[in-house]
């Protein structure tokens, strides 16, 4: 008998990194690494579970930029090139390590890994990974949901209702266009909630969203069931809270599974270890060392010489950690059952890119967790939030508290001395766009003006991505983040100026449409305060 539920949620997101103006571009590798190490291994897990008729429920949030990139022909072509290059390097490594049997065994493993990845990507799914995810959604095992259009941090865009509304609605429209159905749930970027956003979610047809634990524990009413049952925000939209315990077990580098000494060491990659002459064809511009994905060592331990990676031992550890995870959820649920007026639901959300990239064995762990949870004798059942809501009714009504799942729990990671300069510009551009569209209301609009207005909307949305302030604060690829936000704002300024002066240059507009081709069906009238239902002027 099942006593309670576990809802595993993976949020898959990357900023829009597509640079047709260059032959190749380092940041596009973010996507290629994620496809290779995270998304295709995840699809492999789902396919194996389906073949073995394992009964499970998993939720995957696909962000609109990721959806658009996975469907983009240029990036699909470039990804194949990247994958062939990885395969070539693995083959070269098999030769180089011929006198190091331990490493050669691993080099062969990487060759098999890349060959399998290529087979899944090119042959099995015809370069369309969305079709793979949709297959499992249709099978009833994978619930697909989505996120804001460019992952904008909604509470910091809330100077304008229209900005938030468009982040939500354009995100959902992109999902519907590409997946063919409406999502029931919505991933608030960075779990960033503010009271009132549930109204916009309800208007967009959303039934539920997620907040961090303190969003619920600090709600307007004390939550009767803590973070183990959703709150009805008062309009029928439900807020589910992240369970701190199951999050800590996976997220924390101190207590979490991914830091186990038997797992593969992320930081020791041959892109940094081997002679430059040898590795040059596989790194950036032949002279800037980057990750290649080929790593031969296990974590081993702090201040110890690194030992070689043993995949079988790591796999056994992943199974052990999966069992531990399930045991702890069982204990949690048995304890909660005595105190709650309904079956508890444990919400365990993670970034999808953790599994396979940082934590190489993450997909194996996930597969084991889902297999163990499917065992009929196990009191924990995996469930999606939609299914839970279909089974349970009469939820407590309360308004969650403003919160995020980021450092300190609020908004300070996205607004601080490293990145606060962006907000006056973002808000100004948004206000100018809304005024521009308002000024066009009632006028006849040419096809060139329509294209320019749509492109201006794309520029604003791309500038609003939460990734840019996140990177500025983390201090990593800050030059790139600065450049991206400056470019998108400059492109908006150019288009705004050209539209106002009725001096739109078709060549320049075509260039911007080529470079920023996200959201092909965008409708600039969405920026009108009272949204129109068609794209013709009144």
């Amino acid at each position, binding site marked *: 008998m099942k006593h309670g539920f576990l809802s595993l949620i993976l949020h898959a997101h990357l900023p829009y990194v597509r640079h047709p103006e*260059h032959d190749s571009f380092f940041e596009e590798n973010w996507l290629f690494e994620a496809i290779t190490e995270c998304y295709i291994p995840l699809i492999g897990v789902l396919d194996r579970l389906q073949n073995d008729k394992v009964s499970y429920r998993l939720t995957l949030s696909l962000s609109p930029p990721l959806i658009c990139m996975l469907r983009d022909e240029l990036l699909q072509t470039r990804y194949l090139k990247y994958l062939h290059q990885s395969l070539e390097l693995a083959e070269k490594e098999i030769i180089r390590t011929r006198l190091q049997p331990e490493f050669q065994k691993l080099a062969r493993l990487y060759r098999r890994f890349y060959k399998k990845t290529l087979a899944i990507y090119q042959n099995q799914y015809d370069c369309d990974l969305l079709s793979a995810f949709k297959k499992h959604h249709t099978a009833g095992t994978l619930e697909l949901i989505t996120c804001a259009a460019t992952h904008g941090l909604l509470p910091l865009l809330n100077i304008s209702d229209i900005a938030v509304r468009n982040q939500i609605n354009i995100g959902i429209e992109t999902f519907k266009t590409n997946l063919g159905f409406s999502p029931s749930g919505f991933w608030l970027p960075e779990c960033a909630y*503010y009271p009132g956003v549930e109204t916009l979610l309800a208007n967009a047809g959303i039934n539920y969203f997620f907040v961090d634990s303190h969003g619920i524990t600090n709600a307007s009413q004390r939550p009767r069931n803590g973070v183990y049952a959703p709150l009805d925000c008062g309009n029928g939209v439900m807020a589910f809270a992240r369970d701190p315990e199951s999050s800590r077990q996976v*997220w924390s580098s101190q207590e979490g599974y991914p*830091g186990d000494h038997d797992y593969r060491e992320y930081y020791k990659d041959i892109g940094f270890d081997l002679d430059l002459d040898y590795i040059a064809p596989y790194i950036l511009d032949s002279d800037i060392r980057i990750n290649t994905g080929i790593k031969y060592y296990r974590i081993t331990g702090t201040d110890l010489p690194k030992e070689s990676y043993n995949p079988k031992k790591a796999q056994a550890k992943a199974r052990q950690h999966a069992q531990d995870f399930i045991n702890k959820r069982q204990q949690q649920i048995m304890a909660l059952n005595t105190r709650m007026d309904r079956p508890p639901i444990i919400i365990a959300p993670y970034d999808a890119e*953790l599994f396979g990239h940082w*934590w190489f064995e993450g997909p194996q762990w996930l597969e084991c967790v889902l297999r163990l949870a499917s065992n009929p004798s196990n009191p924990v059942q995996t469930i999606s939030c939609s299914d839970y809501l279909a089974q349970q009714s009469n939820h407590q009504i309360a308004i969650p508290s403003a919160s995020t*799942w980021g450092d300190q729990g609020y908004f300070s990671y996205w607004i601080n001395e490293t990145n606060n300069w962006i907000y006056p510009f973002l808000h100004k551009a948004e206000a100018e766009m809304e005024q521009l569209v308002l000024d066009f209301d009632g006028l006849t609009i040419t096809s060139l003006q329509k294209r320019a207005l749509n492109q201006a909307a794309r520029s604003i949305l791309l500038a609003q991505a939460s990734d840019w302030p996140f990177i500025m604060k983390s201090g990593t690829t800050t030059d790139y983040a600065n450049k991206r936000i400056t470019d998108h704002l*400059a492109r908006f300024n150019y288009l705004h100026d050209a539209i106002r002066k009725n001096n739109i240059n078709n060549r*320049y507009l075509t260039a911007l449409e080529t470079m920023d081709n996200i959201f092909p069906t965008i409708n600039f009238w969405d920026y009108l305060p009272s949204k129109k239902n068609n794209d013709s002027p009144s």
Partner: protein
Amino acid sequence: MKLTQLDLLEISQEIRQCYAPKMSDNTPTLTLMPVAPKHLYAYWNLGNNKPPPLQESSPLPLTLRIYSASDKNNYLNKGYEDIPMSRTQSQQDIFLAIPSNVTSYRASLGICFSDNVLEVFADSNLTQLPQEKSSITPVKADFRSPLIAINKKTYNNASGLAF
């Protein structure tokens, strides 16, 4: 219309150079943003036509007067909190000495005279701050956005640290 990579690159560079973002709006504005409980961020633009006191040699302080949007009369018993603001900046972090049950705010920016009368240059939007009811122990996400958190320029080889 077919454009080459070079065309795209040149157009991109030209637009970046000629249309880089700048604040040139002459309309006075004041914007409040939420950061954390009792912590706001404000930015403002008083426009080109600054009122006379701002141009004097010994100017009166620029003051942000913050009101509770929900209970204006009871906020700190006098209906508002005054915070001195920088004259040389156009943005500032604001830390409030407020009761924790107040979460919605508006503000006005201006010059405060000795009788507490504020000559207002700009009024703000309404903003909501998170409530701080219980201390939170957020689960530290050590693996946040792992893909975009790698710095290609300063990345160090084999740190020896397990993450």
